[in-house]
């Protein structure tokens, strides 16, 4: 009897700790490539994060840097020299040791157009490196001057100008560290479905069926928390309604980028949960100061007061959007100014008065452009545009709603004279205010509004060099005040991308940065 009880207890305990099984993720599409540093799309990053580690990792669900393949990092006083201490006893899954040579090999591929193992002749561009690091080796705009080996477990990056946020940049999900052996062996094919990408990550690449699925298996020798499941299958399901169908039919375990309206469907379904990812974007309305009416700041201020942002966000996003007066998502609220109100005032009567003061008591008419595609920050642009237009007509501004093909829209907004008023947004790459502001102000900004004072460019330069959150907050709160009072870009929403999971999926903590490792996810109770 006793023996039975013991064996029963043993059996029970083994059930309780039994990990394993197949975890199925409904991906929004096929990755562009599994070659690190050579992609910008979310579908690639999420798979790459499972195969590769980065030098710097980020705390669960936040943008706070924590040790990854580097155990610590230090810089000189003005943040132009960064030294990373590397983790010892880590091997790539093909047995190649991870060390300073491996790191430098990877960096050279992304940074140096002449590096033999970058295979740029075959059309590889490592686009994201140029965007985040200013440019490539030999270009004046790039801020990396050199990367050198201090010893086997220490690497030094020397920069041409202070960049206090360098660890966040080199640690971003784009820059997974790949095995030099595998790259040399596979050459220009590396990263395509016909190749075998190799990293140090929690999972090992197994197979890629073009257009259909990617399978990765648990890495038994992972240096950090080992995966709780045997394998992860990424299924490519481009249609977001189909992703919801698959989730509800039980053919996938979890998924991302669902239509905000799907939250209601999931609420009524006992088998699934809605999952809100932390917001890391901004959707805004941009006013072009080259327009004869919009060049008057009173007119722009009137427009900012004319529509009820709160009601619009409530209507189109429900719980998954917030509205405030900042260009930055709520995770970076520390960089906002205390002097700026929490949100723009909604006061149509005052707006009408301002228009009269500006000399337009009877209003005027304008083109208002909305994007033809759904973006994470504007899921249904046309409806939102119509809601804003209706309110603007209330203060006498007649709005002609217009749209055009997405590619053309993106090109034309930057071609002088640009659009009068248009909708656009931004999704961040790393947790620094500069990543948001520099996209629309300063030297590398979009030229879509005719507003880009030198004062802002100088402040952005200071922001890059400021060390520590307090020092940064000082600079960015000034930027916040200037941009708020300019009424050129009116932030409408910071939306939380909507994911969904089966009830039995536990331990999934979505990152604001768009990719997280799946090694802590369990699926106990999956049939």
């Amino acid at each position: 009897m006793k023996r039975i009880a013991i064996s029963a207890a043993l059996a029970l305990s083994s059930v309780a700790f039994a990990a394993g099984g197949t975890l199925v993720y409904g991906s929004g599409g096929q990755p562009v490539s599994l070659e690190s540093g050579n992609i910008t799309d979310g579908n690639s990053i999420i798979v790459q994060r499972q195969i590769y580690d980065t030098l710097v990792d980020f705390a669960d669900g936040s943008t706070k840097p924590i040790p990854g393949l580097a155990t610590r990092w230090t810089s000189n006083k003005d943040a132009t020299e960064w030294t990373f201490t590397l983790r010892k006893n880590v091997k790539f899954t093909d047995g190649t040791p991870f060390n300073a040579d491996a790191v430098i090999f990877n960096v050279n591929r992304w940074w140096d157009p002449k590096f033999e193992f970058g295979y740029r002749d075959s059309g590889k561009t490592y686009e994201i490196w140029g965007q985040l690091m200013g440019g490539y080796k030999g270009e004046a705009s790039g801020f990396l001057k050199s990367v050198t080996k201090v010893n086997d477990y220490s690497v030094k990056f020397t920069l041409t100008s202070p960049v206090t946020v360098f660890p966040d940049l080199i640690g971003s999900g784009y820059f997974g560290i790949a095995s030099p052996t595998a790259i040399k062996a596979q050459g220009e094919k590396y990263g395509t479905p016909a190749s075998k990408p190799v990293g140090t990550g929690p999972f090992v690449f197994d197979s890629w069926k073009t257009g259909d699925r990617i399978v990765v298996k648990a890495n038994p020798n992972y240096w950090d928390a080992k995966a709780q499941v045997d394998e992860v299958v990424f299924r490519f399901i481009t249609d977001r309604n189909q992703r919801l169908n698959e989730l509800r039919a039980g053919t996938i375990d979890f998924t991302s980028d669902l239509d905000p309206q799907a939250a209601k469907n999931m609420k009524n379904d006992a088998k699934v949960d809605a999952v809100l990812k932390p917001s890391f974007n901004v959707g805004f309305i941009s006013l072009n100061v080259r327009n004869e009416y919009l060049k008057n700041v009173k007119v722009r201020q009137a427009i900012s007061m004319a529509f009820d942002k709160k009601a619009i966000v409530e209507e189109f996003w429900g719980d998954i959007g917030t509205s405030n007066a900042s260009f930055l998502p709520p995770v970076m609220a520390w960089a906002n100014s205390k002097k700026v109100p929490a949100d723009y005032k909604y006061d149509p009567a005052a707006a009408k008065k301002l228009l009269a003061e500006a000399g337009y008591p009877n209003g005027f008419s304008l083109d208002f452009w909305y994007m033809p595609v759904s973006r994470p920050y504007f899921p249904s642009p046309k409806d939102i545009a119509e809601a804003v237009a209706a309110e603007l007509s209330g203060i006498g501004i007649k709005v002609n709603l217009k749209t055009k093909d997405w590619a053309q829209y993106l090109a034309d907004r930057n071609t002088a004279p640009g659009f009068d008023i248009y909708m656009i947004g931004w999704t961040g790459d790393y947790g620094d205010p500069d990543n948001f502001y520099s996209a629309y102000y300063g030297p590398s900004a979009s030229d879509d509004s005719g507003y880009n004072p030198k004062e802002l460019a100088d402040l952005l330069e200071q922001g890059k060099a400021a060390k520590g959150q307090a020092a940064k907050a000082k600079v960015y709160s000034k930027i916040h005040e200037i941009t708020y009072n300019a009424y050129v870009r009116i932030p409408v929403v910071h939306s939380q991308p909507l994911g969904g999971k089966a009830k039995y999926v536990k331990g999934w903590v979505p990152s604001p940065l768009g990719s997280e490792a799946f090694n802590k996810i369990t699926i106990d109770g999956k049939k």
Partner: protein
Amino acid sequence: MTAFILRRLFRTLTVLIGVTIVVFGFVRLIPGDPAVVMLGERANPQVAAAFRERLGLNKPIFFNFAAPADTQFVRYVQQLSKGDLGQGIKSQIPVADELRSRFPATVELAIGALLFALLVGMPAGIIAALNRNKPLDNIAMTISLVGVSMPIFWLGLLLVYFFAVQLPWLPPSGRLDPTINFDSITGMNVLDSILKGRLDGLGSALKHLILPSIALGTIPMAIIARITRSSMLEVLSQDYVRTATAKGLNQRSVILKHALRNALLPVVTVIGLQIGLLLGGAILTESIFSWPGIGSWLYQGIFERDYPVIQGGVIFGALVFSVVNLLIDISYAFLDPRIHYS
């Protein structure tokens, strides 16, 4: 016969050259360029220009009087002459590799759709013809009219909603259960699972094939039903059928032996055209059902302005279409002894 085939091959080649020139020009007429689509919100003018330059998209398209050989088209033709279709701008994967790996999925779906179209369409057409102007005829023709007019994506979504979400009998999309994995031989899962003796794989592959086959096969089904009916009616009114009936042969053998064979000729033509269309990749159906064939790949390519992908896909589609038509014309000779290819 040989002369005929050679003539047809030459014509096919001319068609393909024409298609190449037209598609090359047309994709570049679509507003918006690949650099901007790929960079999205990040596409500020400097970045986009640098990207275009790296891809050679800043070169003249057809004509460059300063350096005639230095145009996008000449470079593309030089590649083509080496049998190289280029590589996707976004994926950097050779277009030929993509076509090779995706074509089996498209073939499998085309066969499924065709089977559905034939098994439902032909009997419906025959039954309608034999019951001319009776209720059965009206029912069959009404169904086929609805079938022709129903937009594929709408039908696809309805099928998924009822048979995958409300009654979870069939999977909503994909080709195989996520937990089933075997190496492919032909790339057609139904065939591969039989060859590998994987019964679980066969069941799963067939289950995944049902809904997309119905969605894709509905229009051909309706067309085949109508053609079968009208062709059958025409044959049934011919003298030799009346004679056969008068001779006292039973109705069934008259229909099957005499009428059907002759009625099939126009049906074969229609089937041929449909095969060509189906093998070109069913863009909407494949996209709705996440079916990893040529259609869904082309759809993505068009959306992303991926010039080499669109060019490769369209040229390939034209090639398949021409070859299938040629085969159909040759098969005519065997079906109808009255046709001569002199």
